[in-house]
């Protein structure tokens, strides 16, 4: 009986069935630049095809950032207003290393295996290891505050910590390295990774990154540890009483969310070839929050949809309404929150059967008239 109901569909077939919508989305995204190229005929690395690739790259990266926020707020129930610190931290780590450290290494040293020159690859690997290290440190910093504080006090402290890191990123004291208010621009990149010269490569890297992060996070939230993190959201006292230490699980949630956010930030810095103080600001956190709420908290797919709406609809709104587009978007956001209180995906999952019934009823209405 119940055992049959809850038996997970194992193997590839079960996975494809369960993640069908996501896999279709990935397939569409893979085909997108080529199809758009055929339609417009501008060439893959020019004109409107290139422009929409750029829009989608931003969307993919922001989707990962929003998903990492969902991990924290939707699954862990941890409302942190400083999540952009990890995102910006990753971005600054990449930009600083690539601008001030990598050129030095690349011009003075050569690392080879046989005839293969792997200097560039090694440098990039080191850069990404540093990104992970920075994210872990920022994650630890934030989770340390959550040991004693709860609710609004905790949220306020994360806001303060996030702002501190934001101020640090635009401090004039470090103008020489970080560029203070203006940020770091013109980060040197290898040709194959340069978004202006090889946008399609960056497009597929970002898409692959989104796919990988989704799969890993999806696995994590359904793992024994992930389930305990959800239990922490639901009822901390009870969780204690059945033998879990909430601090440990909150730290795990913070660290994993921070690592994903840091990697997203790193990729964002590569895509923009810059790191700016905006990336560490609360505005960035609020954007992720809006994306997560739009799509549905605690769903993982929701934040992807939310990021898509923000990016794609935002672009159309910009062309239709000009600089006033956030005003229109705000109205749309209020409407969505009013009528879909659990976000698009959240409300759909909750009311799936009744929505389907209503649609059937609606169609039956027409068939009767005939």
């Amino acid at each position, binding site marked *: *009986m119940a055992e049959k109901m809850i038996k997970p569909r194992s193997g590839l077939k079960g996975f494809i069935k369960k993640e069908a919508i996501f896999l279709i989305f990935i397939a569409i995204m893979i085909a997108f630049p080529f199809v758009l190229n055929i339609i417009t005929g501008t060439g893959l690395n020019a004109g409107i095809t290139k422009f929409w690739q750029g829009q989608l790259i931003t969307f993919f990266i922001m989707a990962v950032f929003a998903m990492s926020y969902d991990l924290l707020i939707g699954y862990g129930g941890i409302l942190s207003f400083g999540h952009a610190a990890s995102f910006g931290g990753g971005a600054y780590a990449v930009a600083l290393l690539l601008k001030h450290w990598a050129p030095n290494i690349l011009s003075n040293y050569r690392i080879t295996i046989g005839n293969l020159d792997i200097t560039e690859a090694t440098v990039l690997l080191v850069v990404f290891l540093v990104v992970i290290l920075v994210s872990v440190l920022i994650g630890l910093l934030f989770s340390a505050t959550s040991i004693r504080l709860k609710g609004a006090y905790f949220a306020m402290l994360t806001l303060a910590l996030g702002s501190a890191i934001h101020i640090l990123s635009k401090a004039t004291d470090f103008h020489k390295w970080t560029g203070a208010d203006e940020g770091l621009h013109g980060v040197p990149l290898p040709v194959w990774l340069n978004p202006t010269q090889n946008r399609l490569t960056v497009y597929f890297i970002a898409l692959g990154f989104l796919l990988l992060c989704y799969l890993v996070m999806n696995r*994590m939230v359904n793992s024994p540890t992930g389930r305990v993190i959800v239990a922490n959201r*639901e009822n901390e006292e009870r969780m*204690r*009483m*059945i*033998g879990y230490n909430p601090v440990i699980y909150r730290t795990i949630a913070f660290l994993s969310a921070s690592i994903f956010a840091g990697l997203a930030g790193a990729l964002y810095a590569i895509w923009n070839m810059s790191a700016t103080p905006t990336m560490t600001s609360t505005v960035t956190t609020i954007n992720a929050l809006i994306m997560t709420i739009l799509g549905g908290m605690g769903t993982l797919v929701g934040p992807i949809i939310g990021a898509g709406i923000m990016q794609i609809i935002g672009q159309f709104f910009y062309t239709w309404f000009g600089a006033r587009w956030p005003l229109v978007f705000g109205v749309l956001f209020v409407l969505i929150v009013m009528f879909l209180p659990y976000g698009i995906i959240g409300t759909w999952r909750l009311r799936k059967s009744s929505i389907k019934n209503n649609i059937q009823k609606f169609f039956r209405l027409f068939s009767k008239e005939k």
Partner: protein
Amino acid sequence: MSNEIILEAVNLSKVFGGLVAVDDVSIKIQKQTMHAIIGPNGAGKTTLFNLLSGVMPPTNGSVIYKGNDITRVSPQKRAHLGIGRSYQITNIFPNLTVLENIRLAAQAMGKDNFKLFQLADNFHQYINKSEEVIDMIGLSGRELFMARDLPHGEKRKLELGIMLACDPELLLFDEPTAGMSSEQVPELIKIINKVVHQKDRTAILVEHRMDMVMSISDVVTVMNQGRILAEGSPHEIATNKQVQSAYLGDLYGELT
């Protein structure tokens, strides 16, 4: 019934501001007994419970479990030592399914809590254990219901199930029948009786319902105003003059 002491409170006190909720209470719980703690509202029963389960630290005194001082041991560690607790106010994971509520408790006692990249549903031992518990508490067929959607009586059962899935040796029941209608109570008593005696467990029971306490417990402790008033077998308590005048006299006079 053996004479071994499983849990002992020594001169336990808890002061909230100026209010002495628990005042120098010493109590010994014998292994494999059903020990009831009764008393009027505000007698300090739940506070005593919170001290025993580690939710709050005592102002004074100590708690001894199986010969070890556990006064400063955190609730999560006490759970691993074999102390389980249910709550007077329903304390479940509302937005998770019944099965997941219990599965989490079963998982807590295993060694798989830090497997981040494996699917929780593939650990069949916990699911099987949960099925067993769900059968025992009489919630079969409700596995995939959201805990928040259950009627109150079933939430109370789920509350017990979460505690049972940890397989504790010592069970602390904080008013298990709170808010239940009198028709639902006998079934719950039956379940409690079954789970306590099935594995030679020990239980401490805080209760309001006199009839329930008298029928199932071996030892009864009466508390009043933070102190222990009397202790003895249900019969002794029912005939104790002091208890009658302090507590039973007004409410349960007909019992004597």
